[in-house]
């Protein structure tokens, strides 16, 4: 009985806390934040509300930009940024910065030793503290320190298919989402500013307009389209091109389009292309999926090296080597983008590719591991429609053949390799031969994972292994 009491009471307490959290937080709006763009760093700080006004912690705000410290003494709060001193008094609007007096639009708040100033006061405070100009977008909660704004132009060409080309002053890395009728680019860490007008209109039926909006520390560029569209990056991230999705650009060496979201339904590839009544597409042989990306970094391989970066570099290398052999290959992501597993599988399924290769990386183990799908429970296919969870079932044998061939290619390069099954999505959702490769270092040196020489060696073996079974893979596709 005693054991039961001990083990259950924390659980009950935990459940009550969880329930309370759900009640408190359900329906709450996203946390308010202020984004800061500067030459030193781009970052966001949380915003607190006091008396209906937005406040921000001055210490947290300026910490990434220089040496800061603060000391609370009763109602007084002394703050120092590099060599600049400031003094605030709780409940008062008057403050001293660099020996001079300033008035803030609302009272200074001292909360548990933390000094909070109204965001609207930053317009007068920061130039004094930082000794330079700032630009504050109050409604969008975006703060630009110095001349860091990224301007852009957008124009739709007259060609067929129409292309919306957006040129940015610096490389950008937005999150991209598509839904029927629009394609949205969300800039969270890029200092992209309005092109002058909030609404851009283009003399084009497929891409008629775009709107620019700044809200809660982000800039959102929403492109209105009358056809499914996709975006691709070029010019080292300075150019984003939006094109109708029905006319994909698939050269082996060009940046690949970002897949539009497709609903998680599966049909045989041949049936899909003909049933849609769209023009016959140029077939992609391989879809290479660099795992993780965007908000999802994957494993932290070292302090600086993230799995998402290694997978992208290796995926690009695979695409290059496939291209050199005249084999068309498409990257599921060709930038630091957040894609769901369903989007990745849907993209592969829609492309009609003969093989899907997911790329992972690890700091543990020795050499390379190849994985084919461990199918979960289920399998209730309905006529033409396959069960999403076990869509890979009828391609399992072909996937094994491909993985075995790649394993031979790696062994021929004297790379330690192991072939396993794994419950690793989206392998089970893909309707073609599919395997995942997890590259690891050959010893303790994890930095080897980002070495061009090591990646080249592994990529050559993978491409060679796939090419050896190309006929079997193509035969199944036909």
């Amino acid at each position: 009985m005693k054991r039961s009491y001990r083990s259950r009471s924390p659980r009950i307490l935990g459940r009550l806390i969880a329930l309370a959290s759900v009640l408190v937080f359900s329906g709450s709006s996203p946390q308010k934040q202020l984004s800061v763009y500067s030459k030193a760093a781009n970052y966001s700080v949380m915003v607190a509300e006091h008396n209906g006004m937005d406040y921000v912690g001055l210490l947290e705000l300026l910490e990434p930009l220089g040496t800061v410290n603060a000391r609370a003494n009763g109602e007084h709060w002394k703050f120092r940024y590099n060599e600049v001193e400031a003094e605030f008094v709780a409940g008062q609007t008057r403050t001293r910065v660099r020996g001079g007096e300033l008035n803030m639009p609302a009272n200074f708040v001292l909360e548990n030793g933390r000094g909070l100033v109204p965001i609207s006061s930053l317009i007068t405070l920061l130039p004094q503290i930082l000794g330079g100009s700032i630009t504050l977008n109050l409604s969008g909660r975006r703060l630009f320190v110095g001349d860091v704004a990224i301007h852009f132009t957008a124009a739709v060409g007259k060609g067929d298919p129409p292309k919306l080309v957006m040129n940015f002053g610096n490389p950008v890395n937005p999150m991209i989402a598509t839904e029927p009728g629009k394609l949205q680019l969300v800039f969270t860490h890029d200092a992209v500013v309005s092109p002058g007008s909030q609404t851009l209109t283009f003399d084009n039926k497929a891409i008629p307009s775009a709107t620019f909006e700044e809200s809660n520390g982000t800039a959102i560029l929403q492109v209105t389209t009358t056809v499914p569209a996709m975006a691709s990056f070029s010019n080292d991230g300075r150019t984003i091109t939006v094109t109708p999705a029905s006319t994909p650009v698939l050269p082996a060496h060009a940046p690949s389009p970002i897949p539009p979201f497709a609903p998680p339904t599966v049909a045989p590839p041949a049936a899909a292309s003909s049933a849609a009544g769209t023009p016959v597409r140029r077939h992609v042989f391989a879809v290479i999926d660099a795992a993780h990306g965007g908000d999802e970094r994957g494993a932290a391989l070292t302090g600086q090296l993230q799995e998402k970066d290694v997978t992208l570099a290796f995926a690009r290398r695979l695409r290059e080597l496939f291209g050199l052999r005249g084999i068309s290959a498409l990257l599921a992501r060709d930038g630091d983008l957040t894609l769901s597993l369903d989007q990745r599988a849907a993209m592969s399924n829609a492309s009609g590719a003969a093989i899907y290769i997911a790329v992972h990386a690890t700091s543990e183990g020795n050499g390379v591991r190849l994985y084919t799908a461990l199918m979960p429970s289920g399998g209730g296919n309905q006529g033409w429609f396959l069960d999403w969870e076990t869509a890979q079932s009828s391609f399992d044998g072909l996937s094994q053949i491909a993985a075995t061939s790649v394993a031979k290619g790696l062994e021929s390069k004297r790379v330690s390799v192991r072939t396993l099954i794994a419950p690793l999505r989206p392998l089970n959702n893909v309707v073609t031969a599919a395997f995942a490769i997890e590259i690891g270092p050959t010893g303790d040196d994890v930095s080897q994972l980002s070495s061009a020489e090591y990646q080249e060696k592994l990529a050559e073996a993978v491409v060679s292994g796939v090419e050896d079974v190309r006929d079997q893979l193509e035969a199944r596709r036909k």
Partner: protein
Amino acid sequence: MIPRHLLIAVAVLGIMALGMSLYVWSIRGTVVRTDASTPNTQPVARPAAGPSEQVTLYVAYDEGGTLRPQAARIPLPSGRQERAEELLRALVDIYLSKSSPHVLGAGSEIRGVYLADPGLAVIDLNAAFANGHRSGVLVEELTLSSLVATLSANIPAITRVKILVDGKERDSLAGHVDLTAFYDVSRMNQLVNQLSAEP
């Protein structure tokens, strides 16, 4: 005019309050010192109920990336569900030990195992288990297969397994191994066989 006996009573109470305050103040330091020097007498092992039984735990070894069956004697209660929980807790204890062959994050726990007919076992991990788990395909599938194989080898008639974290469904264990699906033990056994073979 305040009666004399009331004045006396108030004076006595005041003296008592002062005395108590002084006493509490004097023992305050003693308690701190005692706490610092007295070893923790909390039991380090869970209270076990039931006779010890021989079981087979499928233990993951990071070195070599293998799964090895390992005989162990642990006290097991009579209830089927409680037995399942104790089995997995014994397995997790190995992973949390100093000489762990497959390190789990501190605070990793099995919150519970729920057995539902026909043949479904739901393993509920705590958040620390998943949040503190190392990220990687092999390291995650070693954990998953170790839990499933240990359960199915010792509790008869389990045919499907589902993993929850803090009572809720989670996309993956640590970014790789899928936790959204139900897994057939027979299919999972294929993986166990592969992992049991030396690479």
